[in-house]
């Protein structure tokens, strides 16, 4: 009974206070739309950055005379006993030769035998750990020389120049994205609650009169909170609808072009919807309930 009364009050108020309700809804809609476009883009961008970062790796060259047992031992060391290791690929002498020959036929045509060693290409767990990984595999001695972690290893190398550049570039991309995401979420909350406070301000006289005819604070507050929930839900649902339309119309046809991002983005769309909806409803309900406090002091 009480609840249906509050619900009726809330919907009546929505109908009769078109401008403030609409403004609050527009605020929710716009900020949720921005967030909804932004979050998958962050995923895509950091995905792309990661894709580039994955190119950072350490080459572990084995001695020319490494036995198969030694190769297996090194593989075990790499995959099980070494920190910072992400992915390990084995490139045998023969594979390496074939590959190089394909790239530089003239040079290799002149070679009789295969001068290339067996190699492990090791990706670090995080691109930023590439230096540490190298130190693991080829620890520095006190005298500043490099030793190796296993007698079968001849040398450990990473291509310094490219690595640093790629690392710093992708680091910027990812940092920017994280920071912007945080900023936008904060800004959304601020903007929505700002609009709600203003739309309550436009109705402060009404609240005053309610108190004067004997309504308790919560009797006044509940309809506003429910109104906030409805406004938030409508704004959120509209934003999600627009996002879906946008996704179907623009993103899906392009998916083949951007195969890099297709997978994570699609997977998270459901979660994204849920997060946006809950966020918009929560922010506007809380905003309505809390902002009301200052107008209740009569």
């Amino acid at each position, binding site marked *: 009974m009480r609840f249906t*009364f509050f619900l009726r009050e809330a919907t009546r108020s929505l109908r009769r206070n078109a401008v403030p309700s609409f403004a609050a809804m527009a605020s929710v809609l716009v900020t949720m739309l921005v967030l909804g476009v932004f979050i998958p883009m962050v995923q895509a961008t950091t995905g792309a950055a990661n894709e580039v970062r994955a190119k950072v790796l350490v080459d572990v060259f084995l001695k020319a005379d490494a036995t198969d047992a030694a190769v297996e031992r090194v593989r075990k060391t790499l995959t099980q006993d070494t920190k910072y290791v992400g992915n390990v690929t084995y490139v045998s002498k023969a594979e390496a030769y074939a590959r190089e020959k394909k790239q530089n036929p003239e040079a290799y045509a002149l070679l009789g035998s295969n001068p290339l060693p067996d190699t492990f290409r090791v990706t670090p767990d995080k691109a930023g750990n590439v230096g540490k990984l190298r130190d693991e595999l080829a620890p520095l001695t006190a005298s500043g020389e490099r030793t190796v972690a296993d007698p079968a290893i001849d040398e450990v190398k990473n291509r310094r120049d490219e690595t640093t550049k790629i690392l710093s570039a992708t680091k910027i991309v990812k940092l920017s994205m994280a920071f912007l995401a945080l900023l936008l979420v904060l800004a959304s909350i601020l903007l929505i609650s700002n609009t709600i406070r203003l739309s309550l301000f436009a109705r402060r006289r009404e609240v005053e009169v309610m108190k004067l*005819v004997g309504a*308790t604070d919560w*009797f006044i507050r509940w309809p506003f909170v429910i109104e906030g929930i409805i406004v938030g839900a409508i704004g959120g649902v509209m934003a999600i609808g627009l996002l879906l339309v946008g996704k179907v119309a623009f993103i899906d046809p392009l998916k083949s072009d951007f195969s890099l991002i297709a997978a994570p983005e699609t997977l998270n769309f459901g979660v994204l919807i849920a997060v946006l909806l809950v966020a918009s409803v929560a922010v506007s309900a809380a905003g309505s309930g809390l902002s009301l406090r200052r107008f209740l002091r*009569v």
Partner: protein
Amino acid sequence: MIRLDNVTKIYKGETRAVDGVSLNIEKGEFVFLVGQSGSGKSTMLRLLTAEDAPTSGEIHVAGKDLGRLSSWKVPYLRRNIGSVFQDFKLLPNRTVHDNIAYALSATGATRKEIRAKVPDVLRLTGLSTKLHNYPDQLSGGEKQRVSVARAFVNHPPLLLADEPTGNLDPHTSLGIMQLLYRIYRTGTTVLVATHDSHMVDRMRRRVIELRGGRIIRDEASGLYAQREQTTDEFGDLLDNAYHDLGRSD
């Protein structure tokens, strides 16, 4: 019902709207509050509903010391007081019917009670045809009558009416006054701030006159103006003044 002990209300540190007023109104009395414009009548009524707090002094309403009433109890106090506001204070986004229904719901009435009571008070105040009008679709007098209807719809033990007939023609005023009188007859304490000398003079009830926030007169069955002679004198004075207006044409 109402007890004021040396109550003073000072606005902005200078205007003494109510100035050292001590007063006792028993349960079941009918009291007129009169005085010039700006003499402190509305301020006194606002103090009684805890809308404003006095600068000093003690106020007891319905056995409660307002100075010690915690703020969450104020709504429960107000449910026992029906208020007719000088500026009506209607909810702009509700129809006449819903304005009155809201006041009832706020006090916890069920939908059934609302359906039973609201049409009744609207008929009594002559608003049956304006049921679905919003306040900005009413004439001044109609708004005033909605405010009156809202004040007594839940039969409060105390009724405070601030200028309940200021925007009404004499005939409608009489109807409203009869209504207030009838409510009073059911045992309700009624306090009416008014400028309607005709009404005060004919009803001969207790009259409290304010001037500059102080009580300058408190008579058991008084007139609008100070003494009977003075009333006549004042009336003559007015007559002459208007006559002059007419003649000097």
